[in-house]
């Protein structure tokens, strides 16, 4: 950790100089990063909705949205506004309380998980020690909301959709955790910062994707299943279940499900980038660049440039994964529910265990390359 710009310290000191007490200054600072991240996550949703529509159109040789703003970039905003203004209907025999709480429980963990997403050495809300484990734990709460929504709608399709969502989420959580565990084993820490640190130093060659290719595939399949993206979107399979647990929802309550699914997709992509593609790490080691240019690492300008490069690198890598997810959506047919569960329990779980064992063996055999 090098000394340099510390936004938090300087912000608090400015406030203290303005005559505020220390506690108040710290309390004013605290909500700022959270607000920035929440706004960022929401913008990420808008961007990925637009990308989804544009890329889907390109895959199907259509034009896609083009009238709302240049290239249709405002289409997602228009969609959101439409949802806000739609009538909010609660079916007559639905359970109004559970019907309302369900979508909220689905959305909250998705946003809460952004707590641990790093965009730079110190650019994250909280470097909690349990890091990536927090994401796995939080993502297991969402199915309760789905079950709640499915049950409260008083509709057979909804109930079946909710049950499928819960079954799918439970089944794919285990291989996902095993894939993450292999990474954690290599970096000796659950913290996302340490995971990226362990990959940095050699540029693109040091990224985990070269050491964990099986893990990456495993992680990505399971992440798609957890997000209910298309090869695995059984809970909402239109041909079978109308729209699954979303069938009875309209207006902003439906919007919450929609937002949650895209927040989850972006979050999984960012974490895939952090775990396997070196997070904010630039393909060329930046300290090499600084020594070529003859700039000190603590130079403020250099630090600002590094931080913005880090954020850009993280987002580019994350949106690469979003792009892959969208392409997969139009490439692969949906699996059946029994195929889904077979794949999860009989294929991915053993592969995850083997990958973990291999990683442990390689770590013992080559401690310099696999984080001894």
């Amino acid at each position, binding site marked *: 950790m090098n000394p340099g710009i510390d936004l938090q310290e300087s912000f608090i000191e400015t406030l203290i100089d303005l005559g505020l007490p220390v*506690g108040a200054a*710290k*309390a004013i600072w605290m909500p700022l990063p959270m607000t920035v991240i929440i706004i960022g996550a929401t913008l990420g949703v808008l961007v990925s909705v637009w990308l989804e529509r544009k890329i889907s159109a390109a895959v199907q040789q259509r034009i896609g949205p083009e009238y709302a703003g240049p290239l249709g970039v405002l289409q997602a905003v228009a969609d959101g506004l439409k949802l806000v203004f739609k009538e909010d209907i609660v079916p007559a025999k639905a359970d109004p309380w*559970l019907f309302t709480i369900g979508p909220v429980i689905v959305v909250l963990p998705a946003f809460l998980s952004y707590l641990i997403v790093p965009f730079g050495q110190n650019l994250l809300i909280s470097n*909690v*020690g*349990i890091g990536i*484990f*927090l994401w*796995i*734990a*939080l993502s*297991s*709460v969402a*199915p*309760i909301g789905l*079950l*709640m929504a*499915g*049950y409260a709608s008083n509709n*057979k399709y909804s*109930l*079946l959709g*909710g*049950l499928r969502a*819960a*079954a799918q*989420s*439970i089944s794919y*959580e285990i291989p996902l955790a095993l894939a993450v565990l292999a990474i954690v084993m290599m970096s000796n*820490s*659950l913290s996302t910062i340490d995971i990226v640190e362990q990959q940095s130093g050699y540029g693109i060659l040091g990224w985990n994707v070269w050491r964990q290719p099986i893990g990456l595939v495993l992680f990505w399949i399971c992440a798609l299943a957890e997000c209910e993206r298309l090869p695995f979107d059984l809970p909402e399979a239109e041909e079978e279940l109308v729209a699954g647990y979303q069938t009875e929802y309209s207006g902003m309550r439906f919007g919450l499900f929609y937002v949650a699914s895209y927040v989850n997709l972006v979050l999984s992509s960012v974490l895939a980038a952090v775990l396997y593609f070196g997070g904010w790490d630039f393909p060329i080691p930046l300290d090499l660049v600084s020594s070529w240019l003859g700039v000190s690492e603590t130079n403020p300008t250099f630090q600002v440039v590094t931080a913005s490069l880090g954020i850009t690198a993280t987002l580019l890598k994350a949106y690469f994964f979003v792009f892959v997810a969208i392409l997969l959506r139009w490439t692969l047919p949906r699996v059946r529910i029994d195929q889904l569960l077979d794949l999860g329990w009989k294929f991915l779980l053993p592969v995850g265990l083997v990958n973990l064992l291999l990683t442990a063996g390689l770590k013992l055999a080559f401690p310099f390359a696999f984080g001894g």
Partner: protein
Amino acid sequence: MNLAEGVQIVSFGLLSLMVLGAALGVVLLQNIVYSAFLLGGVLISIAGLYLLLNADFVAAAQVLIYVGAVNILILFAVMLVNKQEDFASLPRSWVRQGATALVCTGLFALLSTMILQTSWLGLNSGAAPETSTTILIGEHLFSDFLLPFELASVLLLMALIGAVVLARREFLPEEIVSSERQPVLTLPERPRQPMVVSSGTSSTPGSTSE
């Protein structure tokens, strides 16, 4: 009292209220689905209490295992069972209620004496441990708590095998089984009496569409 302590006290009060309220709801509400959802609320609040005690790993594990797995499976079971059965008062229900009350009071007395007799001084220094809690837990699990840890895993293995044995029992009518569809892999403890031949009075698990 600075900001952090105030936040801590307020959140402790809120979490305790949530635990107590949700737990009372679990016991007292008539609708079993509400009880199951409130159980999730109880477990999440307890995870919050763990967080206040600097036990972050235990809190996350609580959310992952109790909320994300156990509670979802309870909900699953509740929602898959589609049996409307009117409540019939049992003849000697006071025996059961008396026994329940006895056990609960006994448990409460036991826990209260334990809490009162333990000296809590010196346990809580108020500060977070220097090393990460995950590392501490790992060291304890593989040194002085190795035996309980392994015993728990043996218990889980037994439960797993039991679940497989229960799930492999196929409920098929006797004549079909004996004549043509003899399953290749039959467990010795498979019951020989047919379970589902009678016309539609008993609902099989999985038929939610009645």
